C-alpha cells in the first residue's frame, strides 16, 4: 500500500524537483516547467527554410526532395516526440516548422549536409598547419582515430604556428586539379601515395583544423579526387584517396555491444554497418587491398559532409558487407555515430535560407473555446455518473481526477525529459481517453452489481467482481497498448504523437484502476453506508436485488423469499419483451400434499394455459 502511494507520488516529486533544480527560463528552454510544452499548432514555433543544393550542381529531382524530407523528418523525430511539420516549398526548398524556440544546435543538426563517402586514408597529420614538406604520419594505426588525434594534438600543440590556413579545403586552381586528375589516373589504386601532388601536399600543410571555419564542412568535394580535410572534431587532418564506397550503399547503421570472436556479447560499444550488395562488393575490394598496408594507409575514413567522422583501421577484410567499428566508444558516442551514418546516405546539401518565428496555426481563442466546450462535456460526465452510480459515482470522478493529474504530470515530465509536445490531436486523444478510462470503472462497477444481483454481500461482490472485471480490463487495455506501441514505432509525425498519448493514458488508466479505484472500493465496502446498501450509495439491495431465484435443489436466492417481505415488496409486474419469465409452478396441492410428478406437469400445463394464479413459492421440505 505504501509502495503504491509512493509510486503514484513519485512523478509529482520528480517534476517538482526538476522544476526547482532545472527550471525553465529564457536561457534554458529545455528546462522543466510545471506546464507541459505545447506543439506547433497550439503554441507556434520556429520556421526554418532550407534550400537543397546538389553537390554536383545537377537538378534537384522530386525524388531526392522526397528523400530529403524523409531524412530531415527522421532527424527531427530523433530529437523526441516534437511533431514538427515538414513540407516542400517550390521545387528546391524545404520548410521545417519546429515548436517553441529553436537553438542553433538543432538548426545545424537539421540542415547538416548528409553526404557520406568512404575514402582510403593516405596521410594523417596534426591539426595545426605545418611547414615541413612531408607531414609526419605519426598517428598510430589504432582503430580509434580520435584517441590518436588527441595524442598528436597534445604532443605538438606547442608548435602551433601562424594560422594562415584560411583557405577552405579543396580551393585549388584548375591546373592543380588537372594535375591531380592525372595523378589519380596514373595511380595504381586509390591508396597510391603518388596521388599526393605538390598542390595537395601544400593544401594539407596549410590546413588548420583548429580554426572553426574549417570545421563547418560543406560538401562540394569531388569524389574522384583526393580530399584534404579535417576530423569533424578538429583533432586531426587527413589526406584521403578518391571515394571507394558511396554512402548511399549503406543500408543501415546501428550501435550496440559488439560480439567478440567467440560469439558472445562483449562489453565494448561499437557501430555495425550494413551495406547493400554493391556496397558490399566495393567494400570487400577496398578492405582486402587496405588490410595488408602499413598504418595509416590501412585505415579508411568515413567522410560526412567533407569532414572525417571516423577513420577506423581494418582488422580483417570485410567480405559480407557487414562491418563493425569498435574502439573506445561510449554508449552515447556509438549512438551518435550510428545516427550520423544512417542519416548520411542522401545526395543533397542544405543551406539555411531563413529562420522565423511563427504563430500558432490554431487561434489561441479557438483553442480556449474548444477547451471550455470540453470542460462542459466533462461536467456532464460527472453529472451522469452521479445519476447512474449515486455516491459511488464520486469514486469514478475521483479516479478520473487522479488519472488526469497523473497524466498531466507525466506529460509535463516527458516534455522536459524527451521534448514531448502536446498538440491538438494529442489533446483530442486525452479527451477520448476520458471515455476509455471511465470504462474501466464502469466495467468494474457493473461486475460488482452483477455479483450483488446474485445475492452476494458487498465485500464478497467486490472481491469476485474485481477478479472478473480485472480480466476484461487487462485484455481490452492490452489491445489498446498493442495499437499504441505498433503505431508509435511504425509511423511518423502526428500519428506518432497520438500513439504516444494513447499508450500513456492506457498505462496510467490501468495503474489508477489497480492502485486507486480497487483499493478505495475495498475500503468503502467496509463503510456501513455502502455495506448496508444505503439508498443513495448506488449499491442498494433494493435497486439491485432480483426477485427470488430458484437455484435448484429446493433453494432460493434473493432477499424476498421470506414470506413476510412479500407484503412489503409486491411481486414486480412482469414485463416481458420476448421471453416468458419462469413462474413458480405449484408443488403442493391445496391440502398440502406433495404432488406427484404427473400432477405437477398437469398443473404446469394448466398454468401455462393461462391460469394466472401465481402460487406462492413453496416452502420447501428439505429432505437431506
Amino acid at each position, binding site marked *: 500500500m505504501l509502495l503504491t502511494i509512493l509510486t503514484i507520488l513519485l512523478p509529482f516529486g520528480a517534476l517538482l524537483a526538476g522544476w526547482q533544480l532545472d527550471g525553465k527560463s529564457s536561457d534554458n528552454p529545455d528546462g522543466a516547467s510545471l506546464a507541459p510544452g505545447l506543439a506547433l499548432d497550439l503554441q507556434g514555433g520556429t520556421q526554418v527554410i532550407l534550400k537543397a543544393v546538389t553537390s554536383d550542381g545537377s537538378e534537384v529531382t522530386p525524388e531526392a526532395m522526397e528523400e530529403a524530407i524523409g531524412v530531415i523528418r527522421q532527424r527531427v523525430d530523433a530529437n523526441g516526440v516534437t511533431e514538427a511539420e515538414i513540407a*516542400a*516549398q517550390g521545387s528546391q526548398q524545404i520548410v521545417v516548422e519546429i515548436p517553441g524556440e529553436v537553438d542553433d544546435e538543432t538548426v545545424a543538426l537539421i540542415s547538416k549536409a548528409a553526404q557520406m563517402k568512404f575514402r582510403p586514408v593516405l596521410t594523417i597529420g596534426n591539426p595545426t598547419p605545418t611547414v615541413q614538406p612531408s607531414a609526419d604520419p605519426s598517428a598510430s594505426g589504432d582503430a580509434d582515430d580520435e584517441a590518436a588525434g588527441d595524442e598528436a594534438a597534445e604532443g605538438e600543440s606547442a608548435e602551433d604556428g601562424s594560422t594562415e590556413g584560411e583557405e577552405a579545403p579543396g580551393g585549388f586552381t584548375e591546373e592543380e586539379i588537372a594535375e591531380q586528375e592525372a595523378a589519380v589516373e596514373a595511380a595504381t589504386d586509390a591508396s597510391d601515395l603518388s596521388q599526393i601532388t605538390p598542390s595537395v601536399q601544400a593544401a594539407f600543410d596549410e590546413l588548420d583544423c583548429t580554426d572553426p571555419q574549417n570545421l563547418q564542412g560543406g560538401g562540394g568535394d569531388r569524389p574522384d579526387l583526393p580530399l584534404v580535410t579535417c576530423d569533424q572534431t578538429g583533432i586531426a587532418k587527413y589526406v584521403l584517396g578518391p571515394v571507394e564506397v558511396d554512402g548511399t550503399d549503406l543500408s543501415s547503421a546501428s550501435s550496440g555491444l559488439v560480439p567478440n570472436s567467440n560469439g558472445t556479447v562483449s562489453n565494448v560499444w561499437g557501430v555495425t554497418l550494413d551495406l547493400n550488395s554493391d556496397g558490399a562488393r566495393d567494400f570487400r575490394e577496398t578492405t582486402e587491398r587496405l588490410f595488408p598496408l602499413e598504418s595509416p594507409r590501412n585505415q579508411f575514413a568515413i567522410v560526412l559532409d567533407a569532414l572525417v567522422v571516423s577513420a577506423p583501421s581494418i582488422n580483417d577484410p570485410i567480405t559480407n558487407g557487414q562491418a563493425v567499428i569498435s574502439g573506445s566508444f561510449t554508449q552515447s558516442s556509438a549512438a551518435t555515430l550510428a545516427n550520423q551514418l544512417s542519416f548520411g546516405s542522401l545526395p543533397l546539401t542544405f543551406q539555411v535560407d531563413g529562420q522565423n518565428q*511563427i504563430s500558432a496555426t490554431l487561434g489561441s481563442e479557438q483553442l480556449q473555446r474548444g477547451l471550455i466546450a470540453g470542460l462542459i462535456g466533462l461536467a456532464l460526465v460527472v453529472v451522469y455518473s452521479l445519476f447512474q452510480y449515486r455516491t459511488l459515482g464520486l469514486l469514478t470522478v475521483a479516479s478520473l481526477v487522479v488519472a488526469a493529474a497523473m497524466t498531466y504530470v507525466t506529460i509535463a515530465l516527458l516534455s522536459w525529459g524527451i521534448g514531448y509536445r502536446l498538440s491538438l*490531436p494529442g489533446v483530442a486523444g486525452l479527451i477520448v481517453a476520458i471515455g476509455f478510462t471511465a470504462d474501466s470503472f464502469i466495467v468494474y462497477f457493473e461486475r460488482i452489481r452483477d455479483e450483488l444481483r446474485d445475492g452476494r454481500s458487498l465485500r464478497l461482490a467486490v472481491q469476485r467482481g474485481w477478479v472478473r472485471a480485472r480480466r476484461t480490463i487487462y485484455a481490452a487495455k492490452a489491445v489498446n497498448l*498493442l495499437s499504441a506501441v505498433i503505431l508509435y514505432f511504425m*509511423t511518423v509525425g502526428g500519428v506518432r504523437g497520438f500513439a504516444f498519448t494513447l499508450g500513456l493514458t492506457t498505462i496510467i488508466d490501468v495503474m489508477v484502476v489497480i492502485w486507486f479505484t480497487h483499493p478505495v472500493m475495498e475500503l468503502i465496502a467496509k463503510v456501513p453506508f455502502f455495506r448496508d446498501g444505503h439508498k443513495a450509495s448506488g449499491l442498494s439491495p433494493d435497486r439491485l436485488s432480483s*426477485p427470488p431465484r430458484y437455484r435448484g435443489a429446493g433453494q432460493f436466492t434473493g432477499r424476498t423469499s421470506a414470506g413476510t417481505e412479500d407484503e412489503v415488496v409486491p411481486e414486480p409486474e412482469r414485463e*416481458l419483451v420476448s421471453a416468458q419469465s419462469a413462474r413458480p409452478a405449484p408443488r403442493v396441492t391445496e391440502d398440502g400434499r406433495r404432488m406427484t410428478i404427473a400432477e405437477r406437469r398437469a398443473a404446469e400445463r394448466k398454468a401455462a394455459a393461462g391460469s394466472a394464479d401465481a402460487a406462492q413459492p413453496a416452502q420447501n421440505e428439505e429432505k437431506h
Partner: protein
Amino acid sequence: MARGGFAQWGNDLYTGRRSYPIVQRRGIWFSIVALFSVASVLILVFQGLNLGIDFRGGSEFTVSGASTTDEDVAIDAVAAVAPGEEPHVTQVGGNAVRVQVSELDNEQTDRVAEALADAYGVEVSEVTSNFIGPTWGESVSLRALWGTLAFVVAAGLFMAIYFRAWRMSVAAVVAMLADVLISAGVYAVIGWEVTPSTIIGFLTILGFSLYDKMVVFDKVRENTDTVLEQTRSTYGERANLAVNQTLVRSINTSVVALLPVAGILFVGGFLLGAGTLKDISLSLFVGIAAGALSSLFLATPLDVALREREPKIAAHTRKVMDLRAGLVADGADESVVAAAASGSAQLVPGTHLGQSAQPRRRR
C-alpha cells in the same frame, strides 16, 4: 419498471427476465449495416473525401511588412476571391503573415495576392506566392497506413489467441472496419475538409471500436465458456444474454465517452465557433457511437453466425434444439423453454431435475 427504473431494467437484463432478441434478429442488423456500408462506399467513390492542404499541398502567400497581423483579415480576403476555402493563417516574425490555401489556378493566385495586399495595406510586390508541398505527403500516409494495418493484424491475432477462436477476432475486425467505413462515409457526406486531425480521429475510432468489442466479447466468452457442457441453451442464446447483460455497461460507457466529444462538437463547433476542432470531434462522435453500437448489433451477431458453423457448436445447437423440441412435445411449460431460450442460467422453480440432481452413488 415499478422500482429502481434504470437499475431495475439492468437487473432484468442481467437475470434474463427481460431479453432483447439481438442475436436472433441478426438479419435486420446485417442488412442495415450492409446498406450503410454500400452507401458509404458509393459516397466515397463518387463524392470522395475533401482532402486539405496538408495532403495535397497548395499555394502559399507571404505578406511582408503588414500593418496588422490580424488573422481574420486574411480569411476574409481569401473568402472574397475563393469562397469555400479554409486558409491557414500564421504570423511569421514580427510583421509578416503567411496564408496557405489549397491549390489555386494562376488567375486566382493573382487575385488572392491582390486581395491580401489590399487587406493588409501593402504593395502587391510585398506579397510573394509560392507552391507549398504537402506536410502529410505520400510517405507519411503510407507509413501511417502500414502502421494501421500492422496494428489491426496484431490486434486480430491477439484476440484470436485470447479467445481461442479465430472467428471471434474475424467478427471483431470486420465490425471495426464497418465502423470506420461508415464514419468515413458520414464525413464525406458532410464534406468538411480532411485534415491530419481527422485521420487521428479515425485512428482513435479504430482503437475505441476494437476496445469496445474486446469488452463485449469478453462477456460473451464468460457466458459461453461452458456452453458445450450443458444442453439447456445454445451458443447463440448465451451470446444474446451476454449482449443484454453488457447493455447497461455499453450505454454508460458510450454516454461518458460521447459527452466530452459532443461538448466540443456542438458547443464548440456550432455555438462558439471553434472551427478547427470540429473536424476531429465530428469524426470521433460518429465513430464512437458507431463503435459502441456495432459491438452489440454487428460484432456479436456476426460472431454467432460464424461460430455456429463451427462443427462442435453446430452439433451442440442441434442437440439443444432437439431436446427442446422433445420437451415441447412432452408438453413442458412454455416458460421453461422460454427461460432456456433467453440464455438465462436461471433454473425454473417447480421443475424437477430428475435423478441428475441426485447425489451419485459411489462405486
